[in-house]
């Protein structure tokens, strides 16, 4: 195990590591544009160079193998001067778009300019111009003037998403990042990761373009419900202190963008996860109903409780979007009365990728495994419930109410507005993932937590507390 010294301090390294890897693993933030822990070494940005003690020049640290007793300096005068020169060269033709650039506030070039005392450009010559707002794909906009040709995006498509759809055309300072002309990049289900990877504001999400300054947003840890992979994500929404008063209140509870958190497979999510907002920006159900008539929520709960107590052969279709906590609550409070079947709330939509060799799973529900852990039996589409079933409790989506046994009563719990809710005997509107906290278990058994982004609206109920209410008997409690 080689021991190296960075700025005089010793660090244990592993054979085969580079100085950059050791530094970053130990909180020494050597700057880097082209280096990324998940990608191959490009060594083209040159900003990571450090000085080996005793030498009067610098060498890139991202490609410097560790050797026993290697001593490097990351902040000597030579390194500081060098960094300023690299920043001069990197920004030579970079447009000062900060005022209108989405990346502002989380841009490595900005950050390093401040941290390492970048100086205004000393060039007297006009900047080289290039294409701006090139549609790399419908989802990704590319500004070639801002691009510093670090090639992280290119390497991502070759090494991670394997679409091999991005490259560098031409050469010299007219080099351009481009997608292959057959449009393969638009078919890369992981394309949006390049927006995170891009150290500057060259690669931008078309959907997020100009939507918000990033410093008005805060990230809330969550879990993508798009499939059983359950990637950990950050959902970005307006900070409470930056609430918009004048515009529609809807903007204040919008998910503006989604970024990956650390996952075992790396900091990547598929494009479906990026479109998290589309999961939740659907018409909500706000109104409890009794046989289609709007009623107060507590009235609907009372009605449901009565139905449950009076049922002889009740079935529950368990939501695979329910959190582990909600599932446990149902198990503890109500399950013994019911025959429980876990259903798939969502199926793959036409045109949606089913399963691939990377992250995407065919099961488009986030907590199938968590639900099956509590209730081992599954319900498949078309499976008929027995004729003597007299109550069907539908929890979540994915069950056609019309297929319930003709004589059975129905209780529907759902967050989303549907015309069929009015045909249920009782309908109670539920909260959604962004309005509560909980955990999901992915297909591998990994448990990941999500937090609430927004307060729960009064009109809806959390399933957890609902089950407690439903379990309370109308009969006087027996003396304990």
């Amino acid at each position, binding site marked *: 195990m080689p021991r190296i010294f960075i700025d005089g301090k010793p660090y244990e390294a592993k054979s085969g590591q580079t100085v950059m890897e050791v530094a970053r693993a130990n909180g020494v933030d050597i700057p880097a544009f082209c280096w990324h822990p998940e990608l191959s070494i490009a060594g083209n940005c040159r900003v990571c160079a450090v000085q080996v003690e005793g030498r009067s020049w610098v060498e890139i640290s991202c490609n410097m193998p560790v050797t026993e007793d290697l001593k490097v300096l990351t902040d000597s005068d030579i390194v500081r001067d060098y960094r300023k020169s690299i920043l001069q060269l990197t920004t030579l033709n970079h447009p000062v778009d900060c005022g209108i650039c989405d990346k502002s506030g989380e841009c490595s070039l900005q950050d390093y300019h401040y941290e390492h005392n970048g100086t205004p450009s000393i060039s007297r010559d006009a900047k080289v111009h290039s294409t701006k707002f090139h549609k790399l794909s419908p989802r990704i906009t590319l500004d070639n003037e801002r691009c510093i040709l670090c090639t992280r995006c290119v390497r991502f498509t*070759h090494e991670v998403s394997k679409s*091999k759809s991005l*490259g*560098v055309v031409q050469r010299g300072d007219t080099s351009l990042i*481009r997608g292959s*002309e057959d449009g393969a990049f638009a078919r890369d289900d992981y394309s949006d990761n390049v927006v995170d990877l891009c150290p500057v504001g060259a690669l931008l999400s078309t959907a997020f373009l100009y939507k918000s300054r990033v410093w008005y947003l805060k990230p809330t840890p969550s879990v993508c419900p798009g499939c059983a992979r359950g990637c950990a994500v950050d959902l970005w929404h307006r900070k409470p202190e930056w609430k918009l008063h004048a515009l529609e209140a809807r903007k204040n509870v919008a998910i503006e963008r989604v970024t990956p958190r650390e996952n075992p497979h790396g900091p990547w999510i598929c494009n479906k996860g990026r479109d998290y907002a589309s999961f939740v920006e659907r018409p909500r159900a706000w109104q409890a109903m009794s046989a289609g008539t709007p009623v107060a929520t507590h009235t609907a709960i009372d009605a449901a409780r009565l139905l449950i107590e009076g049922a002889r052969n009740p079935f529950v279709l368990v939501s695979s979007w329910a959190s582990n906590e909600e599932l446990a609550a149902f198990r503890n409070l109500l399950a013994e009365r019911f025959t429980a079947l876990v259903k798939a709330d969502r199926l793959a939509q036409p045109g949606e990728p089913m399963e691939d060799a990377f992250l995407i799973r065919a099961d488009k529900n986030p907590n199938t495994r968590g639900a099956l852990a509590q209730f081992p039996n599954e319900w498949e589409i078309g499976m008929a419930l027995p004729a003597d079933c007299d109550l069907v409790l539908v929890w979540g989506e994915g069950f056609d109410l019309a297929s319930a046994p003709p004589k059975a009563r129905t209780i529907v719990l759902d967050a989303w507005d549907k015309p069929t809710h009015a045909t249920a005997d009782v309908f109670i509107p539920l909260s959604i993932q962004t309005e509560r906290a909980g955990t999901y278990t992915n297909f591998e058994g990994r448990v990941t937590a999500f937090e609430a982004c927004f307060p729960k609206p009064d009109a809806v109920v959390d399933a957890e507390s609902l089950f407690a209410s439903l379990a309370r008997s109308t009969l006087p409690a027996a003396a304990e």
Partner: protein
Amino acid sequence: MKHLVAEFDALRARFPEGFSSSMVLPCLRRIQEDRGYVADEDIGDLAAYLGVPRIQIEEVLSFYGQFRRAPVGRCHIEACRNVSCSLLGAERLIDHLSRKLGIRPGETTADGEFSLATAECMASCGTAPMVVVNGKYHESMDAAKVDALIEANRVKAAE
């Protein structure tokens, strides 16, 4: 590209195992020799034949100075403008060529007969200035010789 596949198969057999990617340059050169330039459909065909990513071929086509994706003149003239040729009058020669043909470097005459380009050092410095015509070196050139060259190529076209 189909009519070239047999040739490509033979070439592939000469390379060691695992060298399919290396075939990109020689295949593009052959396609260009055959058609005069590399067409859009050639890119997909070649990528499929070699099993390399399409983007690799697009990158190669745009990186190397000799590959072109559009036709040039029937008589394509490249004139070196590097150091030794410049020391021996290349700038005047290129000017002369440009005026004689009525086009600037990078352009093709309206009748599609001649195109003109500047080139970097061709390793012909001892016989400067020089031009390359359809890939053939013409060295120790001067205005008179260049005029004769153009005439000879015009005559050829007329035949």
